[in-house]
């Protein structure tokens, strides 16, 4: 089985978000970039397929040279090879077209992406990719087993979960649950050394439409100060009469 894990390079979850250039760009100053958490759960599940079922695992990202430390980290965790599509990932449709080209050329059976990146939250790349390639698709995937070309997945639904039967070739929009938080791997020194020797192919983007464009950003309005009360009667009164929430 050939697996491709799609990696997005995102600000770490503790980052404070600021904008620059007249609120038209995300301010990367002082921000630590990491593998998108939803992708990292998928990468870790891919490692399981590699170790238990002999799968090969490639990783891909769409981004500039600044994303290379993140993709090297994926190699240090255990991916065999990496691909970087040399383009800024400003639109989900454009990114999906780039990935579709990589999947076609690489002949992958299983593509694992995150359900969304935690920065731009488009949540569309895996689904558009599946449509472009006419592959099966499971979103918000919280468990995945593959047996031959049959796949069984669990997906999170509102208020519960759904078990799904499908088959390869398959695209997954993954999230926590594919593996547990405690299964995530921190690269060790040997992995980091080996990652330096692994192949990182840089390819140029294919022509594709940019369907959307973020033209301006804004931070949430500052909140008024919290009203502290010292008994539940006052709280109920405020929630009922002032906030009209109960």
């Amino acid at each position, binding site marked *: 089985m050939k697996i491709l894990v799609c990696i997005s390079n995102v600000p770490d979850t503790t980052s404070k*978000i600021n904008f620059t250039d007249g609120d038209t760009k995300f301010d990367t100053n002082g921000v630590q970039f990491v593998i998108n958490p939803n992708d990292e759960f998928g990468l870790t599940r891919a490692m399981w397929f590699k170790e238990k079922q002999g799968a090969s695992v490639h990783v891909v990202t769409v981004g500039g040279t600044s994303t290379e430390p993140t993709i090297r980290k994926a190699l240090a965790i255990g991916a065999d090879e990496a691909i970087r599509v040399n383009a800024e990932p400003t639109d989900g449709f454009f990114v999906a077209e780039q990935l579709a080209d990589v999947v076609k050329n690489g002949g992958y059976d299983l593509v694992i992406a995150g359900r969304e990146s935690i920065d731009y*939250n488009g949540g569309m790349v895996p689904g558009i990719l*599946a*449509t472009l390639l006419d592959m099966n698709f499971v979103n918000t995937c919280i468990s995945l087993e593959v047996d031959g070309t049959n796949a069984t997945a669990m997906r999170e639904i509102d208020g519960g979960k759904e078990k799904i039967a499908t088959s390869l070739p398959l695209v997954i929009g993954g999230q926590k649950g594919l593996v547990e938080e405690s299964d995530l791997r921190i690269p060790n020194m040997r992995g980091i050394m080996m990652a330096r020797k692994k192949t990182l192919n840089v390819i140029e983007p294919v022509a594709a439409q940019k369907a959307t464009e973020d033209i301006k950003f804004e931070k949430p309005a500052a909140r*008024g100060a919290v009203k502290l009360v010292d008994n539940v009667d006052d709280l109920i009164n405020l929630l009922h009469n002032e906030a009209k929430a109960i």
Partner: protein
Amino acid sequence: MSVLVYTESENGKFKKNAFEVASYASALAKKLGTSATAISFNAEDPSSLGAYGVSKVLNISNANLNTFNAKAYANSIAEAAAQEDAKTVVVSSSADTKFLAPLLAGKLKAGYVPNVVAAPESTSPFTVKRTAFSNKGFAYTQINSDVKIIGVSNNSFGIHEDSTSAASENFNPSLNDGDFNTKSIEIDKVVGKATIADADIVVSGGRGLKGPENWGMIEELANVLGAATACSKPVSDLGWRPHGEHVGQTGKPVASNLYIAIGISGAIQHLAGVSSSKVKVVINTDAEAPFFKAADYGIVGDAFEVVPQLIEKLKEFKAQNA
């Protein structure tokens, strides 16, 4: 050139978010000088959408579509969009819709913008405001493609009644076996209880509750309020509560009217995930907990004393205001 809106139903009954997206679509249609057409699957009373300004409903009656199937649904909606020559498709932000919308975008070669929080800023160019950076910010996104898909964030636009009489028509999409390659085999879902996605009120517990055995009072409080229960990330990582209850940046977002956080200090990732909730209440022993800075109302106190009192007083309140 109408606006097409996908209105979700469950067991034949429209979901609450169907009325919100119908309201959004009909307001947008008015702005564009056209009408709103809804598409529904096995709805019992399709023309009831007229109450939210929709003038036509394409209802699909097909037993194969009783269970949600993302690809078959997406292809049906795409076919309806082509038939109606719809250039704008409005959808919700439910888990099912976030499954089908990207498939629909791929099929229609459309720009899709999820988590939209308001009516379009402008329609030429077409620009919408949406949440980004996991609710730590907003983006104004311009859609440049011919067909546009707008995913309306739960509870952001609201339900607006606008009585129109809606004509219901049967719609028979041409589906093939390939549309059913991904099959549902089992659904494990809480019934008769509010879910985080559509609850008006969410009651959430953190590590301050000390252990899973203490969740009885969280559930009782939720019960009194008709609320959904949720939890912080450490609580789900410790296995005290199921992952499906984890709210925050890597868990579920919450956009309820009221969010009550008990024993949650308020890590930045958690605050991001719940920031779309309108009113936030924090109960915590630590007056320095960061959550107090992001809350509307707070009680500095021990959850084990405050919550049981709150349950009792709310029961009295509910009895008086019933």
